[in-house]
């Protein structure tokens, strides 16, 4: 993936980044290398250290140890140069709620050095392009989640950055707004901006990123393309949905006879099993029918990244908000 000769600098090259808040080691030796022009996913549950990593890369936090370079510039020694190359979109939409959408964009345009007329023109262009022109004169606190997120991204490209940090851009969005954000990310990449995408949605990284680092407890526990990560877990799996949840024990018995590692899903009418090839899957489904289990639907796929996460960490991608909150308070006190 990365260039071994080192001629074109990597968009991000981080080695051994460490950051502690009090007793909590939020980031515990993270290495990252991200090719210029790519979309790279950082995947992990809440509190895994994604946001802290991004804040170090965006010069907002000093690493306790390790180093990072953005397009060849050190984030500590050349912080100001780095700030001229990157743009940050926060987990909470980092726009000013008490201003209108248009005012937010003009404000940032002016701060980035655009003259007054140019800042206005750019704001109008972005509002139009992001489908929020009509709401441009309204205060941001009255925006819907999707509109706010789009404004947040628009605010990050008032002057096109070389590298953009998107920290959980679709958390809390409905599916349609999420797809709009995904379209924007694809368009960004097509125009040459590198995107570091932090997400806890495995599907999102799978959809958009060419490379993924999986982070857990402040460490990178796996890295590769989405396909490599899935391959590392091995086989694919058969997902079955039953018409009647009461039949699940029965279905479980049948599948256990024909396939390996049957897994009951949180949906009471769904279960899945590892399955290497389609023939055996077809056989298993036929076997269910023969045993009188009514199947509402089934699908055969590569393992989901959720399953990858489970395989890599031994625990599901659970919420660790308490820890995150703790890190945040410690950070404030520091």
């Amino acid at each position, binding site marked *: 993936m990365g260039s071994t000769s080192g001629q074109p600098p990597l968009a991000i090259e981080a080695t051994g980044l460490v950051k502690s808040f009090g007793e909590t080691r939020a980031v515990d030796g993270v290495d990252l290398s991200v090719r210029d022009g790519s979309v790279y996913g950082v995947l992990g549950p809440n509190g895994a250290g994604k946001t802290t990593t991004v804040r170090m890369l965006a010069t907002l936090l000093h690493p306790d140890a390790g180093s990072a370079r953005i397009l060849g510039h050190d984030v500590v020694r050349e912080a100001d140069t780095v700030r001229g190359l990157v743009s940050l979109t*926060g987990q909470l939409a980092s726009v000013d709620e008490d201003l209108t959408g248009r005012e937010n964009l003009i404000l940032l345009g002016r701060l980035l050095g655009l003259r007054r007329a140019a800042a206005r023109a750019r704001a109008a262009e972005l509002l139009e392009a992001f489908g929020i022109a009509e709401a441009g004169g309204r205060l941001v606190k009255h925006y819907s989640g999707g509109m706010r997120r789009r404004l947040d991204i628009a605010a990050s490209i008032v002057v096109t950055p070389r590298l953009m940090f998107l920290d959980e851009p679709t958390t809390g969005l409905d599916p349609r707004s999420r797809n709009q954000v995904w379209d924007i990310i694809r368009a960004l990449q097509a125009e040459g901006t590198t995107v570091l995408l932090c997400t806890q949605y495995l599907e999102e990284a799978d959809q958009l990123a060419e490379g993924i680092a999986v982070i857990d407890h402040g460490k990178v526990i796996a890295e590769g393309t989405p396909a490599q990560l899935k391959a590392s877990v091995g086989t694919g799996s058969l997902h079955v949905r039953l018409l009647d949840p009461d039949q699940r024990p029965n279905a479980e018995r049948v599948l256990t006879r024909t396939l390996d590692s049957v897994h009951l899903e949180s949906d009471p009418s769904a279960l899945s099993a590892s399955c290497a090839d389609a023939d055996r899957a077809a056989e298993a489904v036929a076997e269910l029918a023969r045993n009188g289990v009514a199947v509402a639907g089934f699908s055969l796929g590569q393992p989901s990244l959720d399953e990858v996460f489970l395989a890599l960490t031994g625990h599901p991608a659970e919420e660790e908000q308490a820890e995150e909150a703790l890190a945040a308070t410690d950070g404030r006190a520091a």
Partner: protein
Amino acid sequence: MSATPATTHTAAARAAEEAALRKALAATPRPPRASALSSALTFGWRGMLKVKHVPEQLLDVTITPVMFVLMFTYLFGGAIAGSTAEYLDYILPGILVMSVLFTTVYSGVALNTDLTKGVVDRFRSLPTWRPAPLVGALLGDSVRYLVAGTVIVALGVVLGFRPDEGVPGVLAALGLTIVFAFALSWVFTTIGLLMRSPSAVMNAGFMGIFPLTFLSNVFVDPETLPSVLEAFVNVNPISFLADASRGLMQGGVERTDIAVVLGTAAVLTAVFAPLTTHLYRTRS
């Protein structure tokens, strides 16, 4: 809700949107960096926009001083100075000082409110002059100081306050008070960065500013006070500011008063401006 396009539009319209998006995303040449002054003024503009959108916030800075003027003039005026008219002449320049200084606490509260939102991270990640958000916010706040001061003087005139030095004297007193307020706000922005919530900043701020203003010569002649208190009142910079304000409005201002006010302002700025900037930059 403004309907988002995707569902209703035709394929052609979608393609047009896509093209608009691409065009907006296409790399544009980066403009030269904004100057320090321009960045600070832009942040000042931001502060004024907030007042424009929520004008009610000016009530904070106007109602309290109006209450103080009315209460002290009519309730205590006769007792303290013999007549309400005479007391108004004494107290109005002091109340001007007090109300503008009370307003400085809100600078810290506003900064802390900003910090509880994500927008500060964006400001900090911009390649701008680092103190710009702070200097700009305080420039914007100066407008509030001006509003608070104007309300007091206007009310005073209505109640019969006729300063000997006329409009120029009032403007000079207001100007000096704003300069001092600007310096004092740095103390509250520092507190704003150290406290965890806007209301904590408010409490801490008023816990400091309240005794500091009351233990000055704003309301009473210090000679009537017990000696320990009098000693404190006589070195309190706010006493010098109130004296200067009275002198500028009523005539006979002393250079020492102005020098002490400006000197204190310089020291406060020299200590707390860098401290605030440092805290703002390194805050995690």
